[in-house]
């Protein structure tokens, strides 16, 4: 057994150990902390699988933002802690365990016995990269070859934010989401929240910009921007905007809106919906992505802050 194999087994064991902790531990706060650690470490597996784009997404959205979303819910639901009476009986547990083991074993068996000839679309993607002028194959798939998926995914984000907002109580309708945090003027948190966001914004834009030719892109960059915005909110430096603001709603629809306009333009001038003319493909894709990074940052941030709770004064 080589060193690399030992390392891979160790990495898988650490990640799975965190997964077991997340499921088995009693306290919800501990479980969410374990899940954040899991999400951040899964990025290492993705790097080892040579899927750096996914590693970035998993670290930013799966581990960072998703974990913090679960964490804030756990902090609020602290009073509703375990009701042992509700826990399912031994028979249910045993049969659930049996079912889970069966499914895990089936999946593992399927992975171990995959056919030797692997169907792959990678050569096709590489061969058609000239049509967009972008060197990152994943961005090509996301923004050009399967652009429809990405556009609909933006619509899903938009629907989710509409769903979250629609849960606001009547007296807070259209108001500020989340609690107002008080800034401690000489606190460490305020210091960090003033120092880190400028760096984070540069990194976010860099990750977005490099996405054209290297791993990166609008989601990952947008997630970093969103986390910096939330940091300033948590430190009390700024308040969440009331959700009835026009400019906010404009930002939220800018990404999918521009995507749709370009798509319809492709139908009007070109061959099909979302067909870019090869000469203008790169500027069009970059334009859509610039609109999208703003939309993504605003949407992710607002999804984390939740439904409006305070009315506009």
């Amino acid at each position, binding site marked *: 057994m080589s060193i690399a194999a030992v390392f891979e087994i160790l990495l898988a064991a650490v990640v799975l150990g965190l997964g077991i902790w997340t499921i088995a531990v009693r306290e919800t706060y501990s479980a969410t902390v374990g899940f954040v650690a899991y999400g951040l470490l899964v990025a290492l597996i993705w790097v080892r699988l040579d899927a750096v784009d996914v590693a970035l997404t998993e670290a930013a959205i799966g581990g960072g933002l998703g974990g913090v979303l679960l964490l804030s819910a756990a902090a609020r639901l602290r009073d509703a802690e375990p009701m042992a009476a509700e826990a399912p009986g031994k028979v249910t547990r045993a049969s659930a365990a049996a079912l889970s083991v069966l499914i895990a074993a089936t999946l593992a068996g399927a992975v171990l016995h995959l056919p030797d000839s692997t169907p792959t679309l990678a050569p096709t993607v590489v061969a058609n990269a000239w049509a967009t002028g972008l060197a990152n194959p994943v961005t090509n798939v996301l923004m050009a070859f399967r652009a429809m998926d990405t556009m609909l995914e933006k619509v899903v984000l938009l629907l989710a934010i509409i769903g979250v907002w629609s849960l606001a109580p009547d007296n807070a309708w259209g108001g500020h989401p989340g609690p107002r945090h008080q800034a401690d003027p000489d606190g*460490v*948190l305020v*210091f*960090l929240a003033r*120092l*880190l966001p400028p*760096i984070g914004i540069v990194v976010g834009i860099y990750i977005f910009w490099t996405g054209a030719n290297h791993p990166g892109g609008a989601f990952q960059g947008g997630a970093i921007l969103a986390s910096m915005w939330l940091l300033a909110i948590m430190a009390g430096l700024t308040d969440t905007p009331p959700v009835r603001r026009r400019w906010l709603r404009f930002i939220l629809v800018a990404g999918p809106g521009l995507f749709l306009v370009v798509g319809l333009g492709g139908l009007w001038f070109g061959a099909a919906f979302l067909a870019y003319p090869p000469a203008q493909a790169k500027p069009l894709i970059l334009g859509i992505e610039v609109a999208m990074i703003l939309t993504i940052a605003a949407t992710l941030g607002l999804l984390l802050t939740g439904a409006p709770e305070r009315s506009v004064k």
Partner: protein
Amino acid sequence: MSLARDIITIAAVSAGAFFFLAGTVGLLRFPDTLTRLHALTKADNLGLGLVVLGLLPQAGTLRDGLKLISIWLLGLLAGATVSQLIARTARQGETTR
């Protein structure tokens, strides 16, 4: 030339690994939150710095090297501020309980 680089890398990464070992021993052996926090933020950040130093000769371009250094600086900033916050919370928790 490449031999000298490799020697720097091996020396610095080994030293970094030693500091990670020290930090983990501290985490496992120290009795209370504040001392463990000390082990975590100081030893581990030194370890990260040495690993970054060790990887600098292997970095292909100047840009990669600058990115590596900025990662370490970010780690230092995070360690310095977050440890303050956690320590403050720990003290608050002690006085209220």
